[in-house]
């Protein structure tokens, strides 16, 4: 590959190549169209851009409001959008209470424990109502929690998890659910960041045939949070088998309590749902991907609930008489939106499964589907690939019939898509291949199942009321059908979008809006496109193919090396505390890698450590990634939120200006590093030539992706 400037720019836009060719359309079966919630194309007109934002009234009207809103979208403080302002509602009431007159004895959840010989448990809407109220009474009266408090929930896939979430929602308590498989330390970080005083957990759970001890993680989590200055005063422990404590860890007196011992005091208690402003936070969902402070995505009550109810009805095609199974974990956003809040808002019957998909064998999901009459199925490409790998013919052995299937979470390859369609779906089901993110609340890209044909490998166009566009690094639109990739950007706000990063509003703006903002003083939403951080390309028909995360890449002799991978490899060296990888202009290879590392206390810079870092990168990534130089520096230039400013370092390495350093928490370090690196480069005869304008732009733009 030639090292022209043009090719460099193209790579920085396109980051990840498309690995499969454009496929043909697959049309939804007439039987599906005949029963679909949406089969009239007039809906596209109702959600066209000229009708934004009022078009989302159609979603909000699926809910029961205590007080109707006055302003659909308030843009007075961009990009902190406020939806349905003036409206009041309660999320728990919308998911439970309002269904009782008609669906009291209908199953809300059918819970399947992992051991196959254990009984399936049905939770009707009436039982859900009773149990949610009792837990709400515990939270309010026993724990003293009130509206606006945060509670961290670290639980496996058991009915007590959505019951606890809904009890929080009933009181306006903000829940923060941590995936049950995460360590106690990860849970502790989230307790600390959210300032939760109460942790709710479970003693043990089944996974892959083993009864895993979960309670020790709670002890670790409380310790980790305490070290960060946040004291979780109370740990409520559900027992997987009520009355039988199966953890090896003792309960901590004065802090830990068994839920099944506390609950009898509150038996039959009814707690009125708290009427919440539409823009009140409903929950926090943390994303991983940073060694700095974790990112708690704050989702609203009214906008979020309206959005997931609408997309569940129109894109998941859930009818009250369906049996729906989203085979995800509630600990992720998919579970929040499409196991708990969306389906329950529509009075759906949902299957919940405790364990791993392939236990005790890869026929398990299809046995569950057959036995329970599941007709809507929803899972991730990784699970689909796993089920295909371990049991390619298993679905054929079972007599179930899906009308609708979803994929979520990653791009799905056409050959995997076809297996899903032909073998799992038996050629009868429509597939929606969805694209969205934790930050987004609900689907952003998908076909409308009865109205738009499927195309394997493409998620489809933007969903109703979402106007996506592909932009290059300079903010210019990459035209549909050009075959060029770029950054997936949403031009408009939508009700499901997260409100902010909990406690870090500046970081929220920096990561998601700064890149393409046209005018920081503008109050017009058109000037605040949302930067998703995913790369994509758009076909001439408007369908998007999602390619992957847009992380900074250094192109060394045609090999695209992810900075995060390089840095992670450097961090495997015991002495290294922090690492940053930057590109340096190299006459031979176009670009070369330079690594900056700071050391843990007690270690001193040495040639030996530099060599260890180079060797680790070569071993873990490959020879091509071997850094041209390793610079051990006293500290890294960082923002106040702890983010390393790679742009500044890249400037130093290339003998260009480090740019604006006024936002750094430690601006003095820039001069120290500058002198150290320049002196060494001069001594080694490594002074780079003067950069071209395009090269200067590239170095200046480096590190913009968080």
């Amino acid at each position, binding site marked *: 590959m030639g090292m022209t400037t043009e090719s460099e720019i193209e790579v920085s836009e396109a980051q990840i190549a498309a690995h499969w060719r454009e496929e043909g359309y697959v049309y939804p079966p007439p039987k599906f169209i005949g029963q679909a919630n949406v089969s009239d194309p007039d809906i596209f007109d109702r959600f066209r851009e000229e009708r934004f934002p009022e078009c989302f009234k159609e979603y909000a009207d699926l809910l029961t409001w205590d007080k109707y809103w006055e302003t659909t979208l308030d843009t007075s403080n961009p990009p902190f959008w406020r939806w349905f302002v003036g409206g009041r509602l309660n999320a728990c009431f919308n998911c439970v209470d309002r269904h009782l007159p008609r669906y009291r004895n209908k199953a809300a959840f059918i819970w399947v424990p992992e051991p196959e010989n254990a009984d399936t448990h049905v939770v009707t809407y009436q039982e859900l109502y009773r149990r949610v109220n009792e837990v709400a009474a515990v939270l309010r009266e026993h724990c003293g929690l009130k509206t606006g408090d945060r509670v961290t929930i670290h639980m496996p896939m058991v009915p007590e998890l959505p019951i606890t979430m809904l009890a929080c929602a009933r009181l306006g308590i903000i829940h923060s659910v941590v*995936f049950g*498989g*995460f*360590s106690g*330390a*990860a849970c502790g970080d989230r307790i600390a960041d959210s300032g939760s005083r109460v942790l709710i957990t479970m003693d043990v759970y089944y*996974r*892959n045939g*083993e009864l*895993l001890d979960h309670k020790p993680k709670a002890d670790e989590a409380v310790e980790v949070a305490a070290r960060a200055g946040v004291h979780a005063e109370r740990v409520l422990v559900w027992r997987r088998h009520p009355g039988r404590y199966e953890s090896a860890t003792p309960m901590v007196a004065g802090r830990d309590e068994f839920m099944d011992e506390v609950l009898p005091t509150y038996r039959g208690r009814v707690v009125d749902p708290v009427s919440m402003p539409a823009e009140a936070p409903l929950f926090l969902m943390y*994303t*991983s*991907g*940073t*060694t700095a402070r974790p990112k708690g995505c704050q989702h609203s009550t009214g906008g979020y609930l309206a959005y997931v109810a609408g997309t569940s009805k129109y894109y998941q095609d859930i009818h009250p008489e369906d049996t729906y199974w989203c085979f*995800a*974990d509630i*600990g*992720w*956003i*998919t579970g929040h939106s499409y196991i708990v809040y969306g389906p329950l808002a529509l009075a759906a019957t949902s299957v919940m499964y405790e364990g791993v998909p*392939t236990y005790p064998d890869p026929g398990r999901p299809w046995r569950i589907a057959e036995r329970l009459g599941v007709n809507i199925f929803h899972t*991730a490409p*990784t*699970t689909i*690939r*796993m089920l295909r*790998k*371990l049991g390619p013919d298993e679905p054929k052995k079972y007599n179930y019939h899906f009308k609708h299937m979803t994929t*979520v*979470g*990653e*791009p799905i390859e056409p050959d995997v898509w076809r297996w899903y369609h032909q073998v799992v779906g038996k050629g009868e089901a429509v597939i929606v291949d969805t*694209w*969205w*993110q*934790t930050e987004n609340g609900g689907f952003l890209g998908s076909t409308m199942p009865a109205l738009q044909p499927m195309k394997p490998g493409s998620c489809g166009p933007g969903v109703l009321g979402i106007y996506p566009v592909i932009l290059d690094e300079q903010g210019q639109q990459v035209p549909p059908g050009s075959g060029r990739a770029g950054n997936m950007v949403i031009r408009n706000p939508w009700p499901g979008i997260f409100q902010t990063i909990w406690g870090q509003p500046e970081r929220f703006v920096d990561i998601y809006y700064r890149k393409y903002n046209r005018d920081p003083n503008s109050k017009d939403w058109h000037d605040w496109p949302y930067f998703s951080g*995913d790369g994509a390309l758009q076909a001439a028909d408007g369908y998007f193919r*999602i390619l*992957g*995360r847009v*992380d900074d890449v250094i192109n060394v002799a045609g090999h695209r090396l*992810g900075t*995060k*991978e390089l*840095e*992670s*490899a450097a*961090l*495997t060296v015991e002495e290294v505390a922090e690492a940053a990888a930057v590109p340096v202009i190299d006459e031979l290879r176009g670009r070369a890698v330079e690594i900056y590392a700071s050391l843990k206390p007690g270690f001193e810079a040495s040639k030996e450590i530099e060599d260890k870092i180079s060797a680790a990168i070569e071993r*873990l*990534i490959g020879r091509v990634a071997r850094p041209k130089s390793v610079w051990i520096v006293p500290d890294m230039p960082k923002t106040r939120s702890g983010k390393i400013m790679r742009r500044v370092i890249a400037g130093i390495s290339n003998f260009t200006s480090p740019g604006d350093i006024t936002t750094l928490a430690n601006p003095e370090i820039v001069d120290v590093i500058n002198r150290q690196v320049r002196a060494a480069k001069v001594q080694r005869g490594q002074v780079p030539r003067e950069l071209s304008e395009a090269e200067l732009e590239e170095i200046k733009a480096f590190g913009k992706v968080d």
Partner: protein
Amino acid sequence: MTCHYLVGELSALLGELGSTASSQIDRADLDLLRREVETVSPASLPLFARRALERARGLCWESLSRGDMVTFRLRASVCANLRDFVVCARLVDEETDAGV
């Protein structure tokens, strides 16, 4: 993409592997790797998937070399699950990387 569940699944599998560790050093090493997995960007997961496989295989060999078949079977089972997961999640390439 809502791909954070890949981080979670890899973390959970490392937790299972950690529960088979017979020395404090191994346990601490796996805890550290798990912690790194939980804090890296999903884009960096392939690197950590390879490291997790390397560690899992190392532990299998270690128990085998001691003739401890009970531990070996436990570790081999987790190792197989780990390998299936990282291959199916496209974190490593089955042909070239999964044999690390």
